[in-house]
């Protein structure tokens, strides 16, 4: 494989250069320099992937699993190794996965190809159109400059500002994908000001994007209405365990846990996981922070174009915020994806809109990555293979009444938390696991609430893989971090989160009467 050299970024650049969209197009695949470890991973990735695939595919079909399910697990594991090692470009691996799913009788061709029409892909396309709108009209630059001038003299306060931003958006806009679309352009510009572009991502960009990925997902679990899956879980607890969980019960119990978790990650992320070089901790702008202040001053009052852009984006945000009143206002509910398409249409309307099609920077190669990866995840769900994997994990543990409660608690909450690695649907995961946990608790003579509610608190902690949730798919398409970065960061968050839930279970939840 031919080695390519990086386009070296001047440590101190002019802000206009950094924010010049034509120079940093997401739709152009950046050429990145590999470290020796990365080159070894690339070299060994394909043979290791083939080895893993062969072991799973050629073994006798395990009891309870279909031949399709076995093929899908083998293909997905193969793709996972390739995505991590980057032996092949991620989008090529996704296309290969789609071919394998069909050729090895895993999933029907119509299903595999149909994934490109899924809401997550449409949302992705619209996200980048709206993002281009915010960038072209300079709204994103204005917000980003304001944020940096106020908090961004150094990286840590800047990262903290995003934690607070995501926390404040979470109760207002339940749709995680919508929150991602709103904040994405700001993230990209802030990352660029700190010298991180998709061509040459640095530690700050990785931390910023991954921390936001965590924040968008995890803050949803602070509120009962944070996702439909949370509501489903509570309705199972009510119907099967005869215990009512109110909005405030949920919020008082879990919101402190997720805030602490995010603060820990804000602190540990850049110090332990993705370390930042000293030059990445400050904006790489010629003239430093003063130059940014001057830039902001130079921008003056909002231009007509900015106002137009803000109005279009405001309509979309308004539709997202008012989702629960749609039926009352319009007589029907507008899905977040449809709201984004409405925004996309207005944005591209001649004379009315602000963007020409050629100005919309859509990374199509990453849409293909998303479609293929999502196809793998959906096939795992659809074939029952994901459920089979979780059932096997549960069957390995011999639960009985003599077991210590906290042992059961750790296992159950841990399985619920890490099960997001095999399920792409939070709803499906909830429907399968929460009733199972309630039944298990009853069989062990425990109050189902003790296990089911703490397990339900982890429903939205879908952070391990770029396909675990819609925000993950959208953020991955920025090219600021690799699959391996996502896995490392996501698993670390999951372990810290589990530890926090154990501590909370023994203290805070006990005080609230959730655990014994």
């Amino acid at each position, binding site marked *: *494989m031919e*080695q390519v050299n990086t386009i070296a970024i001047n440590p101190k650049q002019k802000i206009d250069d950094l924010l010049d969209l034509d120079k940093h197009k997401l739709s152009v695949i950046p050429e990145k320099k590999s470290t*020796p470890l990365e*080159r*070894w991973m*690339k*070299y060994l990735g*394909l*043979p290791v992937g*083939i*080895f893993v*695939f*062969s072991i799973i*595919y*050629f073994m*006798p*079909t395990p*009891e*309870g*699993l*279909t*031949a*399709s399910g076995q093929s899908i697990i083998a293909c997905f594991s193969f793709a996972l190794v390739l995505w991590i090692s980057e*032996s092949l470009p991620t989008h090529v691996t996704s296309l290969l996965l789609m071919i394998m799913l069909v050729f090895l*009788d895993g999933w029907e061709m119509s299903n595999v190809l149909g994934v490109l029409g899924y809401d997550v892909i449409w949302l992705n396309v619209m996200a980048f159109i709206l993002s281009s709108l915010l960038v072209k009209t300079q709204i994103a630059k204005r917000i980003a400059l304001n944020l940096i001038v106020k908090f961004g003299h150094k990286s840590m306060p800047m990262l903290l500002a995003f934690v607070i931003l995501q926390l404040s958006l979470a109760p207002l806009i339940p749709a995680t994908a919508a929150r991602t679309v709103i904040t994405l352009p700001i993230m990209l510009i802030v990352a660029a000001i700190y010298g991180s572009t998709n061509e040459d991502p640095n530690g700050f960009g990785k931390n910023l994007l991954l921390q936001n990925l965590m924040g968008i997902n995890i803050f949803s679990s602070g509120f009962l209405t944070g996702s439909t899956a949370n509501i*489903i879980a509570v309705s*199972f607890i009510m119907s099967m365990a005869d215990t009512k969980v109110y909005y405030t019960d949920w919020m008082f119990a879990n919101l402190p846990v997720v805030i602490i978790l995010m603060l820990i990650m804000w602190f540990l992320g850049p110090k332990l996981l993705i370390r930042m070089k000293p030059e990445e901790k400050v904006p790489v702008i010629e003239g430093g922070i003063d130059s940014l202040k001057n830039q902001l001053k130079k921008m003056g009052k909002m231009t007509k174009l900015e106002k137009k852009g803000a109005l279009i984006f405001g309509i979309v945000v308004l539709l997202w915020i008012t989702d629960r009143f749609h039926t009352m206002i319009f007589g029907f509910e507008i899905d977040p994806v449809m709201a984004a398409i409405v925004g996309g249409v207005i944005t591209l309307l001649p004379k009315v809109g602000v963007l020409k099609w050629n100005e919309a920077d859509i990374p199509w190669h990453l849409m293909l990555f998303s479609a293929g990866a999502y196809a793998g995840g959906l096939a795992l769900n659809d*074939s*029952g293979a994901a459920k089979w994997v979780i059932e096997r994990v549960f069957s390995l543990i011999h639960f009985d009444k003599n077991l210590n409660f906290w042992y059961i608690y750790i296992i159950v909450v841990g399985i619920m938390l890490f099960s997001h690695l095999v399920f792409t649907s939070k*709803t*499906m995961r909830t*429907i*399968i696991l*929460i*009733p*199972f946990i309630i039944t298990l608790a009853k069989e062990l003579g425990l109050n189902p609430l003790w296990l089911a509610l703490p397990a339900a608190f982890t429903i939205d902690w879908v952070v391990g893989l770029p396909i675990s949730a819609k925000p993950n798919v959208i953020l991955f398409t920025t090219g600021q971090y690799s699959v391996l970065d996502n896995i490392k960061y996501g698993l670390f968050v999951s372990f810290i989160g589990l530890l926090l839930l154990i501590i909370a279970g023994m203290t805070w939840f006990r005080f609230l009467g959730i655990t014994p």
Partner: protein
Amino acid sequence: MRIFKILFVVAIFITNINSQTIINRYSEKLMLENDGNLKLDITFNLKSDSMHTLSLPLNFNNKDVKILNYDSTIQDIKLEKNDGVKFIVIYFKGFSDSLIDYNLKLEVKNYFDFEKNKTDFGNYILSYKFVNFSSLKIRKIESYIFLPEKYVFTSVLETLPKQKSNNPEDIYVFSRENSRNYIKLKNSDLGIGDGIFIKFKFKMEEKSKIFLVILVFIAVGYMIFFRDLVKQKKVK
């Protein structure tokens, strides 16, 4: 013709009518053999009360069905067919006011034609339905469909009742017994005329060894073709 069919079902219903009696549990094991024959093991559980006979539906029209064996609690079994609807008429030995398991074994000749039903990827498609044409309600029904040895299920195409997305309980489960894979389909409270249905794909559990060899070649070929990835420093 249809009116005769209806009259026949009504006649059976009247002869067996007993508002108190229901079939508490109806379990059937359908064991598909390599030659396409089907062995059927039916166990049902009821209080026979004052019933002399019970007509159970036999959903294998136009197939040659043979009685193999039945319990000592059953006096006799006859296969009857009227206007295309087949029934097993069971004659009880005596009355019972407690729940008793009754068992009978049948064989359906040439039930499945492997040649005719072969589709893509070496899959076979099989569909099975049970319609409760008996005069009694069935409280709980379980149908086990066993594949011949060395065959595996590929996927389920359709079921009745349908698996609802908000229902955590599975309509069907896959498992294995004595090296034979089976699918268990269950339902409850089957009224007269209600049924269960499943359509699925299955195939021989064998994987191409040539494919494995090709994979090994690809892995080795890749390592040779891309060896510059790890040799770069030496080249420099």
